């Protein structure tokens, strides 16, 4: 019957087309470069566990997809009423159902799902395993940046408080304790693990373990207001030795500024920025000569009365140990130093602070990231003069390890 043959041909062609489409999509998604948030390119144990579940599930779904689509296409061609169809001729049999068949196609999908359910449960249990002797890092989300606290000696007060870029050693279990200081956010580094929400009043745990040093991008994925779309973060996985260097440098006070411009900037920082931002040891009440401490004061923002902004702003001690700032929107270093997988970006050959970016931010932060400072959400425009911006920039670039080569 020609209609039968036509239907088969169309079905075969559409099968081929769908498979070709699948192949193209898999190729597109599989390309690792240029897609920093790719969910299908695991670089950590947990993300790999998820990937190992994803592949069989997608394969089964893909097979069912092809079967259903091709069957629909086949039937559409095969059973199309001829244009000259006459009532009463070649009428279809009035089938009302077929109970064994229907029970069959109720049970078969249930069985397929039951098999996959076993994989599902196994993966869930694996992801819940926090491992042995994990490094604990507290992550606190707020509008619209992330703070990382490292309590190295277990005394419940952090020795390192930093922002924007979380640093962890390769080859070790890391438990991230996720908290929120205002609304619900979600901490997500797709290369390392799935996401978990930061909910006020709760601490949620997420486990990372990666053998692959690198810088992995993340993005807040629970809608958190104005700048949710650009609330980014990074996790830098360092080889263990480099990680030790990072810890050492981060627990030292930064070098004191030497140039006159930087000193003017330091005074400006105390007068303006310290109302929200902390450099360990400096407070709005500090008087010259300024001295740093090597420990952050706990809950800095909360203790300082500020009607200007949110009570939380990034701790800027050892600011230049980071590679990006402004919630990962701006590079802090020019060239390779912004992306090098090293403990101290300033030691990358040719490292130069990206002063243009810093000045752009200081000129008007809301030009880079939408914020609502009048409503205590984010950083206000301080209306600094260009001279003040220059001085402040000179000061900020001193906030790093003393071994930094002269810029």
């Amino acid at each position, binding site marked *: 019957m020609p209609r039968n043959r036509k239907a088969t041909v169309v079905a075969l062609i559409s099968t081929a087309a769908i498979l070709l489409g699948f192949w193209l999509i898999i190729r597109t998604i599989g390309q690792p470069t240029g897609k920093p*948030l790719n969910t299908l390119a695991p670089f950590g144990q947990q993300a790999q566990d*998820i990937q190992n579940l*994803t592949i069989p599930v997608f394969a089964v*779904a893909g097979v069912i997809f092809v079967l259903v689509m091709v069957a629909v296409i086949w*039937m559409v061609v095969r*059973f199309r009423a001829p244009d000259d169809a006459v009532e009463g001729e070649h009428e279809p049999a009035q*089938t009302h159902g077929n109970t064994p068949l229907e029970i069959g196609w109720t049970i078969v999908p249930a069985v397929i*799902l039951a098999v996959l359910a076993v994989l599902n449960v196994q993966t869930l249990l694996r992801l819940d395993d926090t491992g042995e002797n994990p490094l604990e890092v507290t992550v606190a989300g707020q509008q619209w940046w992330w703070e990382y606290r490292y309590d190295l000696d277990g005394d419940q007060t952090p020795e390192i408080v930093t922002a924007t870029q979380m640093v962890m050693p390769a080859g070790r279990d890391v438990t991230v304790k996720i908290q929120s200081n205002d609304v619900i956010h979600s901490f997500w580094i797709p290369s390392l693990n799935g996401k978990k929400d930061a909910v006020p009043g709760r601490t949620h745990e997420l486990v990372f373990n990666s053998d692959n040093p690198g810088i992995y991008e993340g993005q807040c994925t629970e809608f958190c207001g104005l700048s949710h*779309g650009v609330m980014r973060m990074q996790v830098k996985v360092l080889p263990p030795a480099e990680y030790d260097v990072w810890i050492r440098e981060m627990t030292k006070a930064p070098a004191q500024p030497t140039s006159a411009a930087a000193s003017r900037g330091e005074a400006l920082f105390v007068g303006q920025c310290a109302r929200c931002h902390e450099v360990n040891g400096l407070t709005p009440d500090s008087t010259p000569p300024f001295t740093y401490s090597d420990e952050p004061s706990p809950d800095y923002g909360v203790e300082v009365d500020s009607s200007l902004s949110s009570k939380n702003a990034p701790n800027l001690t050892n600011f230049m140990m980071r590679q990006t700032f402004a919630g990962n929107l701006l590079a802090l270093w020019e060239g390779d130093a912004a992306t090098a997988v090293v403990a101290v970006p300033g030691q990358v050959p040719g490292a130069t602070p990206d002063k243009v970016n810093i000045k752009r931010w200081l000129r008007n932060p809301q030009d880079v990231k939408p914020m609502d400072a009048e409503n205590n959400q984010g950083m206000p425009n301080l209306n600094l003069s260009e001279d003040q911006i220059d001085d402040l920039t000179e000061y900020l670039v001193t906030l790093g390890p003393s071994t930094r080569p002269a810029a």
Partner: protein
Amino acid sequence: MAITEERPPLELTSGDLPPLEVETLGVFHRPRATHGWASWFTTVDHKKIGIMYGFASFFFLLVGGFEAILIRTQLAVPGNKLLSADLYNQVFTMHGVTMVFLVVMPLAAAFANYLLPLQIGARDVAFPRMNALSLWVWLLGAIFFNTSWFLGGGADGGWFNYAPNSGVVFSPSHGIDFYAVGLLIMGIGSTVSAVNLTVTVLNMRAPGMTLMRMPVFTWMTFIVQVLLVFALPVITVALILLTADRMFGATFFDASAGGDPFLWEHLFWIFGHPEVYIMILPSFGIASEVIPTFSRKPIFGYPFMVGSGIAIGFMGWGVWAHHMFASGMGPISVLAFSLATMFIAVPTGVKILNWMATMYGGRIRFTTAMLFSVGLVAMFTIGGLSGVTHAFAPMDTQQTDTYYIVAHFHYVLFGGALFGLFSGMYFWWPKIFGYFLNEKLGKWHFWLMILGFNLTFGPMHILGLQGMMRRTYTYTEGQGFNGWNLVATIGAYLIAVSILVFMWNVIRSYRQHRANPVNPGPDPWDARSLEWMVPSPTPEHNFDEVPVVEDFDEFWHRKYGHDEQGRPVRIAATEDVVQKGDATDVHLPSPSYWPLVLAAGLPLIGYGLIFNLWWALPGAILLIAGIYGWVLEPSTDPSAGHGHDDDHHHDGDDGDAAALEEPSGDEADTASGDEAGEGAGVASADEPEPAMASASADAEDGGSK
């Protein structure tokens, strides 16, 4: 309200009843008009109400679609500055709320209102004035919600509106107040409507229309109403808590004061997940009417279709926390909800396979209605399969809140629900308006829409898997999102074009109909259920005489028997089994102002809550006046004429239930055993004529001609 009204005992359905002594308040006269523009404001006719639901929700489809176009234009290229972050957040929030509460739900309600009484052989819904009330409450609530655009900005917390981001501290504009109060108002409308339709299905079926003879659309709509009755109280509680937090300084969701943001998440999704089925099941019902009609076969496995609908309705209550796999609730909860969610795919899959089995071996006519239904089967399959992939909680932690989810639920709610609703429009348009929509333009509409739809939402699967987050007002170069976003935007404009084609189709078909009226007749598609027995457009009283039902697909069986191979054989000409629509003595409930008056009070109270409590005073006065006027007004105007023959009985019949005079299902079973359907005669005709009730009787009639 109907419950508290004095109603004469049902056994007194014949004989004269004393007219009630109550007159309508003072200077106000009862509306009498049943034609003309004014009649639309006071009508209690389920068909007019259904049509108004349809037009209003189509208007909001244009509003929500415009918001969608803004979203897609903003995201076409990286770093676009068309919308500010603030405006973008409002636009995507309003888009979501509009499409869910102002488009898909009321559009399904339009079909439910119009068709459900017809499909079960009733003259109206159980409580006609309450039906009008649900329309006006919903419509005024929807308008109220959208006025926020002009009163300080729309809601900006997402349709899911998680606390504490929805609190006054983080969202100081009035947008979220409008969201909370607007949804509370619309919830009143939906609850009233759900109760009304539930009672209608349970009590108003024609003789012999047992539950398992009801058309699948009626079944799915019935399940939806039951879901609504149980789901709406949950969102109502959540919204009242939110309103208390925002307006009166309560701290239900404030963790620092001992509240809990999780409370909102759970309440919202306990409502929100059944809501998904509330949106999709009516379209499943529509496809289950369209596919058999155009395949010339009965629906395959009717009990399985009904059963899987019920199963989805039940299981839908046990999966809400799959929206919260990444929320940080404990691993046992995640496990339980993950497994439950996986297995809800089973009854859904049964539906897909049964639709395919219905088409198998059929003789398929590809009308526009059929194309949209087949499109639904294919597109919903994609949405269903991607849904299964995030039932696996570990995978969901990678996928949730990315564009993969956006793709998934648009395949479900656009490719599923909206395609089904468009299918229904093309299918029932001749029944409702008495003229066909142009098939050629309809096919342009379909192919443009399915192409645009797949271009828009297909690439979002890829974008999501590549990590593009939802609800982002922009993205930057270097994130790898550039190309596919542009494709999606082009697709969105194609969808807009297809909607324009549809609108042009409606206008052009109407003009042609005006210039050269060709009545499509009662049964233009050679269809199967009772609504096709009455003339097009449906007469105000629906049925001349209420049919006595003997079979599933009753109308089909009056037209066709079958030979020994099970193939249909014509046993009666269609014109002999359809009704003429010329009955003259049918009692219908009278029009009333009061539903509109009552409903008008609610938005005023809403403005009062938001801006100044004094404004609530006129609202409260209207509300109370509406209630009193309603209670004091007999449902049937004692001094109005009843069609052509108004003096026989039931003067002053004050039951809100228009057709409660008809025997209920229990009696029907007895009645249907009688030869020639005497039971039907009880309905309303003063002199019962023998109804052509059974297929065998029809066969003899047909044979004798």
